[in-house]
């Protein structure tokens, strides 16, 4: 593979962006809908669960270091049993993952910013960018993420500072009113956005120059930062917008950004703040896309995944327009079908991998 190497720091940033990705746009709304002012609680629990999951995924990765998820599957199940499993993973990463995230972007743009522009042109433009990025390789992507990171943080911090004058602490009270089941449900929903998809990061981790504990540290740290940013924005949404407005907003974060008004001077800058979501969403899509394309290349045993980028990009165009017929379907699907679907790939299959790996070890002994 001529994808180059990425440093631990870069992996951390990619993990962070991947964790935040689409979640930061959608999660607060759903959470406020189910557990009202306690929306922060599932995020906290979710972060812990996600960290545990990441540790677990890295453990799978460490079974065969230097191997990507696809190669691990092949090692464990052999070529013929492994292939269908890999195919399923590709379908989820490529069709469902990047397709749906791309739709989020289009939906966000067409509801909030430019409603008269047909959604497909946003997709097309982003896909071109996606293809450029993927063709230039993981190293380029990771380094770009590294460069963007300070700007990104700066924007996020500015965002937090700018909305904080409008905080009304009352809005978080009464605390811990929510019951157990809704909390569990919303934790699950959080993990399904930010936790389970991390399994696809296993396609990237072998390219990292760090190994073992260092890799683990960076990966978990990236995860944690991403999670914390989601936590902060969720809390801010509730504190500033209130539960009701948060849950009724399609994109509460954007509604939050619209509230920014500092000294009657720094205001109306939500479009600038939207850069946060453009960037994190882009990296989420590109990781999915890269994982899908690379997995396909490894499955078919071709040396250079780049030949696949254009055809896959074209397919993604159709898929992204097809996956969700409308935005209410999107919301419904995400809260119902998506959860068990991604849980299968983020939990059931990994458990199976570990079981098989242990079994194999046992047998060979």
């Amino acid at each position, binding site marked *: 593979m001529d994808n180059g190497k990425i440093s631990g720091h870069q992996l951390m940033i990619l993990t962070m962006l991947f964790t935040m990705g689409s979640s930061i746009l959608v999660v607060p709304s759903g959470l406020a809908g189910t557990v009202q002012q306690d929306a922060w609680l599932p995020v906290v629990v979710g972060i812990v669960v996600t960290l545990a999951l990441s540790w677990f995924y890295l453990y799978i990765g460490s079974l065969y270091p230097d191997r990507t998820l696809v190669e691990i599957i092949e090692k464990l199940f052999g070529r013929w049993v492994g292939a269908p499993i890999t195919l399923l993973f590709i379908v989820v990463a490529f069709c469902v993952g990047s397709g749906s995230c791309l739709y989020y972007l289009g939906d966000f743009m067409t509801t909030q910013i*430019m409603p008269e*522009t047909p959604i497909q*042109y946003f997709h097309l433009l982003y896909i071109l960018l996606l*293809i450029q990025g993927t063709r230039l390789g993981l190293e380029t992507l990771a380094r770009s993420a590294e460069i963007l990171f300070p700007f990104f943080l700066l924007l996020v911090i500015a965002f937090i500072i700018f909305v904080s004058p409008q905080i009304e602490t009352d809005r978080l009270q009464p605390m811990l009113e929510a019951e157990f089941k809704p909390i569990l449900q919303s934790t699950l929903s959080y993990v399904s956005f930010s936790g389970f998809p991390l399994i696809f990061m296993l396609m990237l981790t072998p390219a990292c120059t760090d190994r073992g504990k260092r890799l683990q540290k960076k990966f978990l740290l990236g995860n944690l930062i991403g999670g914390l940013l989601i936590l902060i924005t969720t809390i801010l949404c509730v504190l500033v917008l209130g539960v*009701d*407005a948060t849950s009724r907003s399609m994109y509460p974060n954007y509604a939050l950004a*619209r509230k920014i008004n500092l000294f009657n001077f720094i205001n109306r800058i939500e479009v600038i703040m939207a850069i946060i979501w453009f960037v994190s969403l882009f990296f989420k899509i590109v990781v999915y896309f890269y994982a899908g394309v690379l997995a396909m290349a490894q499955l078919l045993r071709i040396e250079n995944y780049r030949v696949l980028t254009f055809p896959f990009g074209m397919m993604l165009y159709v898929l992204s327009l097809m996956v969700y017929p409308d935005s209410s379907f999107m919301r419904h699907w995400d809260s119902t079908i998506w959860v068990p679907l991604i849980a299968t790939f983020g939990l059931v299959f990994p458990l199976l991998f570990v079981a098989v790996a242990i079994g194999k070890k046992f047998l060979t002994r």
Partner: protein
Amino acid sequence: MKRTFLLVLTMLLVVLMITGCWNRRELNELSIVGAIGIDKEPGADQYMFSVQVINQGVISSKGGGEGIGQASVTTFEMETSSMFEGMRRLTTVSPRKLYLAHMRMLILSEEVAKEGVGPILDLFSRDHEYRPDFYVIVTKDTKAGDVLKQFTQIEKVPANKLFSSLEMSEKHWAPTVAVRLDEVEASLVSLGKQPVLTGVMVRGDERAGESEKALQRLEPPAYVVYTGIGVFRGDKLVGWLNEEESKGYNYIADNVKSTVGPLACPQKGEVILEMIRSSSNVQAKFQNGKPQIQIKIKAEGNVGEVLCDVDLQDPKTIEKLERNGEQRIKQIIQRAVDKAQHQYRSDIFGFGEVIHREDAKYWKKIQGEWDEVFPHVPVVVDVDLQIRRTGTKVNSYLTEMRKAREKAKEQK
């Protein structure tokens, strides 16, 4: 690499060429809307949708020139059954598409408010073009359209006048409350809080105020003023608080930034106090399972104007004035609470939410019948007023006058 480069470039160009520009609006194709007014005749099933459009050329033409003779704003009216339809139907009148992101005020007429604002507000939060930073107000004894049509002095755009006047009066005078759309929505949804909106009315000769000749007169024939707060129950306007009660409301809602109020002197006459700071703390206490609302106000003020003979050098006087002031604020608040509890039976103060925060379990039980419970919840008000300074002078000349006279008498 070369091929990719070329291809991406050409594709980009092709995409951009064929896409055209759907969302593009040139600046000179915009009609910037300053304010929207909504009226309804009693019993009619159509709304009257009025917009105030800013006449850009006139506003920004420096030193007159071509702008002379044109009004700085134009008002269009359209009958409609829904807001969105009205907005779009207005294109049959307006030469350009209305641009709403810079809207400052949404004015609802009293009739509309009495019938319920529910069917009106949704568009303004759903459409992406509206921003959440405009204020919602209700007219009193006049039509929203007429408010929009009044020429305003000094500030060329009436919508801006309304906007800044509301902000200023909230900051320095207190009996108005600047409510944004999302706050209205939040209290519409909330079980434990009812919405309020500031009232606006036209004083003077409305018709004369609609003529641009009004601008040329030293004394405007009519002007737009804010008066009191309109109380809602659900989405319907049920009544008004007068100026003092409105102030009381704002004390509870922690909206008082600065205000001015008279307080009785130890003897006769008044001292006018400038309130410089006030913070309120509303809590619910439970006694025998029954909720009780405790309102604690901490206020600081300066003596602003002395209209009586009082010795301000005496710390005891200040103390006395403080007690009087506390009494007065308490009275104002009590009156506001009384009116809300007994006359309008509408929990505009959000006591329900306070109880919810304090005891969520109890709230779950009663939230359904909160409207019936609310009038009977006892409210305890506790005011702590501190008078800090007395302005740039010590004693009033009134006091000195008396002292001088007394001295003269003694010398006699």
